[in-house]
């Protein structure tokens, strides 16, 4: 068993001589003065497996460094609690909404220039748009997943989720803690009201969706669909397509009003002591060969235009300018500023 310890020597607030002594005891000896360490965050599941098995070891070998990948979600409170000049992570991998929140707290940089990450020149415009903080390396599309064996027609509109026949058999997310739920809420504003920022229309539409089963994360939604607990639910395409080939009666639909982007965004912390390594990592993750492995492993749409996916992936994922143009990117800065009020309001509505 290896337990990598992070080295931290700061002359900061010390709580009492006792703790200083304990710290002296506990602080590990300076190891690997030659090998630098890059601290990143990563998802678990299949993504994590691929990262740990192939992607990260290859990076470590090429750049002669050590990568410490934290899988214990949530990352934001940990990053927030760590000192600014010695952050817990050098590279933060999370969704757009959290990146924007991190930016507000000064935890990440705003834009990444093509000087630092050359491969940026090859990405689709959405990956570095003004709705993005950092750079998006992959995206999936948030739409409707549904069961094909319940006699349902393939949904064509977001409004199909509100079908009275689906009462108690539709699925959504606990909005305060899940970005798909938040994106869906904004979509309701667009579908039933004046646009993504029409919260009043969204709240009314949410009320009309009751009764609805709510879960914390997409893995649970996947299982609800597979088990038949719900016949239709808000989910990203990756969550449905990954069961391709397993004969499960589930499919994904792109509603006519559009799909929302669920971007996988990488960003760098301003206080990072290995910024060059951090940028090199982001550049590495944008390489076509790396993008291909991950995209096909978990059914994410790669941001690099130059990636050539195998036919079956290429058919369903968003790999051309035209397809990518369908992705709607919400204004997370706007949403985060109102998050507390929105959370309270939706909790009240959905509590019944």
């Amino acid at each position, binding site marked *: 068993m290896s337990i990598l310890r992070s080295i931290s020597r700061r002359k900061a607030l010390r709580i009492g001589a006792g703790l200083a002594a304990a710290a002296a005891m506990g602080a590990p000896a300076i190891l690997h003065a030659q090998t630098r360490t890059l601290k990143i965050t990563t998802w678990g599941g299949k993504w994590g497996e691929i990262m740990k098995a192939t992607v990260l070891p290859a990076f470590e070998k090429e750049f002669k460094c050590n990568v410490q990948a934290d899988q214990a979600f949530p990352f934001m409170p940990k990053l*927030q609690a760590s000192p600014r000049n010695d952050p817990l992570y050098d590279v933060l991998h999370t969704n757009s909404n959290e990146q924007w929140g991190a930016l507000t707290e000064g935890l990440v940089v705003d834009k990444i220039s093509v000087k630092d990450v050359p491969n940026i020149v090859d990405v689709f415009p959405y990956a570095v748009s003004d709705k993005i903080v950092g750079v998006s390396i992959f995206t999936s599309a948030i739409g409707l997943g549904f069961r094909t064996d319940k006699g349902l027609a393939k949904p064509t509109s977001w409004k199909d989720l509100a079908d009275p026949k689906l009462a108690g058999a539709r699925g959504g997310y606990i909005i305060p803690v899940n970005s798909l739920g938040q994106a869906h809420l904004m979509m309701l504003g667009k579908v039933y009201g004046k646009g993504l920022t029409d919260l009043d229309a969204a709240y009314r539409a949410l009320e009309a969706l009751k009764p609805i089963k709510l879960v914390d994360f997409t893995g649970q939604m996947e299982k609800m669909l597979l088990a038949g607990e719900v016949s239709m639910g808000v989910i990203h395409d990756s969550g449905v397509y990954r069961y391709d080939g397993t004969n499960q009666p589930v499919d994904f639909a792109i509603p006519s009003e559009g799909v929302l982007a669920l971007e996988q965004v990488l960003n760098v912390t301003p206080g990072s002591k290995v910024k060059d390594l951090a940028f090199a990592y982001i550049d590495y993750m944008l390489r076509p060969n790396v993008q291909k492995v991950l995209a096909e492993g978990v059914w994410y749409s790669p941001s690099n235009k130059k990636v050539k996916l195998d036919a079956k992936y290429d058919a369903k994922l968003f790999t051309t300018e035209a397809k990518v143009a369908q992705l709607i990117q919400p204004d997370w800065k706007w949403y985060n500023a109102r998050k507390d009020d929105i959370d309270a309001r939706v909790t009240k509505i959905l509590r019944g």
Partner: protein
Amino acid sequence: MAWLITPALLLFVLFFVLPFGVMAVMSFFSANPVSNPNAVLTTRHYERFIEDSADIFHDALWATLRIGLVTTIVALLIGYPLAHWMARMQSRLGHALVLMAVIAPMLTGIVVRTFAWMTILQDKGVINTTLMSWSLIEKPLPLMYNEFGTVLALVHIYVPFMVLTLAGVIGRIDERLEQAARSLGAGRLRAFVEVTLPLSLPGILAGSLLVFALSISAYVTPSMMGGTQVLTLPMLIAQQVGTSFNPGFAGALGVILLLVSLVIIVAYNRILARLSGERGLA
């Protein structure tokens, strides 16, 4: 003997008082003062809770206390018979087996336990599919994603704590007292109600206190079993910590929860001390 308290005191001061002192102090700041130079002193986190403009914070506190109380009572009703049986059991093997059966739920692990309950309670779960196949019900019963499911799962986790606490106390009650009552003509039930039950009161109070304290601080289980129909204060705290970048508000909520709990505990301890002291038996 008093000096024996030193290790505990040291541990608690360093690892409990100081960190919580830090957190309580931070609940009076608008942001993390160590990392954010713009942080100012403010009481707005507490004001936010008291004002409760969206009406959910006070509800969360009541829900927390209510779920705690119900869980405690149900755990007591379930735990007492089991504890009595276990404490009075003669066979060492039987005792060991029951002990293992009682402890096993505690060991399943927080994640798996919830999924086990999902399997049993959800619309396509064991109970509903069985009842529907026997044509006893037409639509699935809503057993999950509400307070019922939450209390059920919490009771399941905490009954072992109740049982182990009670079994110790009941085990120490001299059986001959009950037998003496029986030999004087009291029926089994009466002997139990008038002899054993009062003598086990300290155990009842200790066990209830423990289960209550635990259930008002639980948040993983209510989150997974309650959907949004259940929002307790710990769940709110977890949301604020995990997704809302509000450690100040979370800290304030924690302070409030701690104060409420301390009041309840001190009151309980007073009652407990008085009742134990009044026993007056040899």
